[in-house]
């Protein structure tokens, strides 16, 4: 239980960032440390593989958590919860990236842990749109092999040097990359989600009429 207030500084995590900066120089683009919680580092695309090596060798982050990607494009379909016949307000498609910033639509990010230090780090790298590929991590962390296959399938991001970048989940001729935000879920377009209003009385505030009104207002929005 984190009763104690969060400390102002976090030496273990600061050290991670420092070592990365000293090893990679200015290819560490951005970083964010939440003391006592977590750390994010964004590196340049061409330093992606080297980052992995530094993390493993210099920082003893031997334990591989996961490697994934994210598409920062806001979904052009919203959540497709309303009737398809309704006029839907135009959705913003401005790209707003998360922690440690970002410049392009796609980012790969990975998380590794140093078991002796008991500290984890999330590293991110932009994937340029013109050449949708980064270097593979599978030679550094064996477990990255399948994760990269998954990303390749889900986002269409390539991994240079990957030994066997084949489909992992979907049947061979599946078209499109499902996790991209512009991949439509057809069923939702045919039929709206039946349970849009998702409200249930809380056990401790039984019949609060006012909250109910709020809920209706929010749900309609």
């Amino acid at each position, binding site marked *: 239980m984190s009763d104690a207030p969060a400390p102002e500084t976090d030496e273990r995590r600061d050290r991670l960032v420092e070592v990365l900066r000293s090893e990679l120089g200015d290819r560490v683009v951005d970083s964010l440390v939440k003391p006592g919680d977590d750390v994010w580092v964004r590196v340049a695309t061409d330093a992606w593989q080297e980052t992995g090596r530094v993390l493993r060798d210099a920082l003893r982050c031997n334990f591989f958590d996961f490697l994934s990607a994210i598409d920062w494009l806001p979904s052009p379909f919203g959540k497709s919860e309303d009737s398809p016949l309704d006029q839907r307000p135009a959705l913003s498609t401005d790209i707003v990236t998360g922690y440690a910033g970002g410049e392009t639509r796609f980012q790969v990010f990975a998380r590794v842990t140093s078991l002796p230090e008991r500290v984890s780090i999330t590293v991110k790298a932009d994937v340029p749109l013109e050449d949708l590929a980064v270097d593979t991590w599978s030679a550094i962390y064996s477990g990255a092999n399948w994760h990269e296959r998954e990303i390749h399938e889900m986002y269409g991001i390539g991994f240079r040097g990957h030994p066997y970048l084949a489909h992992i989940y*979907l049947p061979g001729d599946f078209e499109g990359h499902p996790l991209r935000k512009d991949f439509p879920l057809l069923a939702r377009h045919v039929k709206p989600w039946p349970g849009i209003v998702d409200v249930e009385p809380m056990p401790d505030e039984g019949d609060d009429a006012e909250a109910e009104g709020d809920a209706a207002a929010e749900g309609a929005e």
Partner: protein
Amino acid sequence: MGLVESGKMPKPLTNLLNISRRYSIWIFQWGLACCAIEMGAALGSPRYDVMRLGVIPLPASPRQADLVCISGTVTDKMVPAIRRLYDQMPDPKYVISMGSCANCGGPYWDSYSVTKGVDQIIPVDVYVPGCPPRPEALLEGIVLLQERIRHEDMAERWKGDPIVVT
């Protein structure tokens, strides 16, 4: 050619055959998803013990199975295998669709990779609703199937082409 198929089987014999089919249902050892565990509980748990009803959970090969229980989510990648295994079972064969996913897609109704209902691929005799259904529900489904088998008219069943869903 079979006497049953041509409907020349005497009535008492037909009854006898129906009864023996009813009490000897070899269920295919094949689970797909969450429901498979509840099916496993029905098959394997001493508390439910489907063997009481004459359902024998021995066969691991479709060639010896009478009943396949599609227990869980059917994905598009899985569909050919389900179809193939169903085809490889010898007639007469029965299908129980267990759980919402197998019935209609269930909570994955909007997924890009889930087949919305196994009955699009193979004919289903009994649907057992639930997510997942309790083992008792599956037992109820099996009892229903047994009732159905008891009163089945095999000549009628074999009339015409094999049931093919296209």
